[in-house]
């Protein structure tokens, strides 16, 4: 099966491990991800102001590119891209007046009315492939690996874009169970990591990272799994900073969900670009004899 796929800018550089491991895993599971031609920036943050339409142009143009590709469904990996594309799509579907203004402004484009379905790749795993079918293809069960699921904000909030229950999501837990890992629940799973405040207020992000990782450690996790490249950076880079500042601070490896899936499917570890992860993920996987 073919599926249109929107990568976004960060996946081509800092989050290469997220993209490459997902493409390889989905291929092994029977889905070819076809990159949307001529994609542009998703806008990153959805414009929240009622009187600001210009910032909706970027995400909407991407959805127009999906239509041109002859597709009505697009899969997204980056949580930020998922959020901005989904919200812009809902606006085009539900707000007749703003849709009209935006379509008129982009007069060189074919009118768009929210026809495309935007899904996160985790939803493709759950809804299109199904956990039981994925479990059958697992070659290396991640036995003994204790992993806490961290959702962050943009997959779950606001309500209208949530891929799972807003307060008690289970989709990452299901994935972890499917690949044979030990899923650890912890109370900070849906709490914000500080997001873009890494630029203006990096110490506040460090405080968030301290709270989140300490809680995951107390719950017995050895690693964290997530989907968002910004959470990945904040939780990874700030834990290094915290370790330098406070000698006794204990961090943990941060994995993308697709990296753990790829390892369990027996895909060679080079595809996962573990060199771009923080917190020594390779030595943890080797110590559990999950990769050689």
């Amino acid at each position, binding site marked *: 099966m073919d599926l249109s796929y929107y990568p976004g800018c960060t996946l081509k550089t800092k989050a290469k491990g997220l993209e490459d491991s997902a493409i390889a895993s989905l291929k092994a599971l029977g889905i070819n991800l076809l990159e949307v031609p001529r994609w542009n920036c998703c806008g990153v*943050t959805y414009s929240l102001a009622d009187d600001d339409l210009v910032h909706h142009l970027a995400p909407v143009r991407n959805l127009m590119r999906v239509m041109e590709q002859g597709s009505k469904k697009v899969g997204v990996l980056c949580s930020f891209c998922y959020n901005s594309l989904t919200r812009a799509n809902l606006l085009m579907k539900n707000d007749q007046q703003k849709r009209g203004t935006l379509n008129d402004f982009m007069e060189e484009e074919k009118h768009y009315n929210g026809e495309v379905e935007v899904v996160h790749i985790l939803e493709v795993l759950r809804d299109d492939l199904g956990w039981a079918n994925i479990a059958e293809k697992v070659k290396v069960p991640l036995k003994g690996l204790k992993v806490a699921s961290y959702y962050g904000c943009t997959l779950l909030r606001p309500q209208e874009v949530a891929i799972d229950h807003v307060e008690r999501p289970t989709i990452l837990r299901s994935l972890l169970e499917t690949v044979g890992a030990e899923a650890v629940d912890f109370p900070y799973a849906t709490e914000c990591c500080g997001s873009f405040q890494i630029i203006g207020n990096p110490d506040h992000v460090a405080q968030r990272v301290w709270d989140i990782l300490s809680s995951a450690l107390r719950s017995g996790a050895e690693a964290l799994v997530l989907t968002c490249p910004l959470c990945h950076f904040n939780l990874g880079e700030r834990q290094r900073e915290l370790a330098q500042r406070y000698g006794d601070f204990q961090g943990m490896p941060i994995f993308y969900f697709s990296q753990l899936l790829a390892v369990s499917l027996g895909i060679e570890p080079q595809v996962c670009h573990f060199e771009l992860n923080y917190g020594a993920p390779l030595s943890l996987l080797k110590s559990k004899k999950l990769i050689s």
Partner: protein
Amino acid sequence: MRIEISPHRLHSDFVKKVAEISGQDLLACNQCGKCSAGCPMCFAMDLLPNQIIRLVQLGIEEDIARSKTIWICASCFTCSVRCPRGVDLGKVMEALRLITLRKNVDYIQAANISAQRLSELPQIALVSAFRKHTA
């Protein structure tokens, strides 16, 4: 703290502007405090999220301008999904930021980010920070 309530403030251009940009019914808030209870960034805030919306309702613009709170908000929408009165406080915070940013006042300066830092940061961090904190 003594707060002077006046019809002039309650119906000020400031209150109208916040309502217009955010698209929210500001008077729907009945100060239950659930937004502040769940806010992950409130440890760093000098005014709590529920205090911000109360000050907006009363049109007390100066106290909000003196506070750092709107620049600490990370737009995580925890308050928005939990508000029992359906107020999207994330949008109110955005409106308050925009009232300053639209006067061409930036909260962060791109020139202050070192070349080394720029090479480390993921693109989504830079674009979202500039979108939220610069004009």
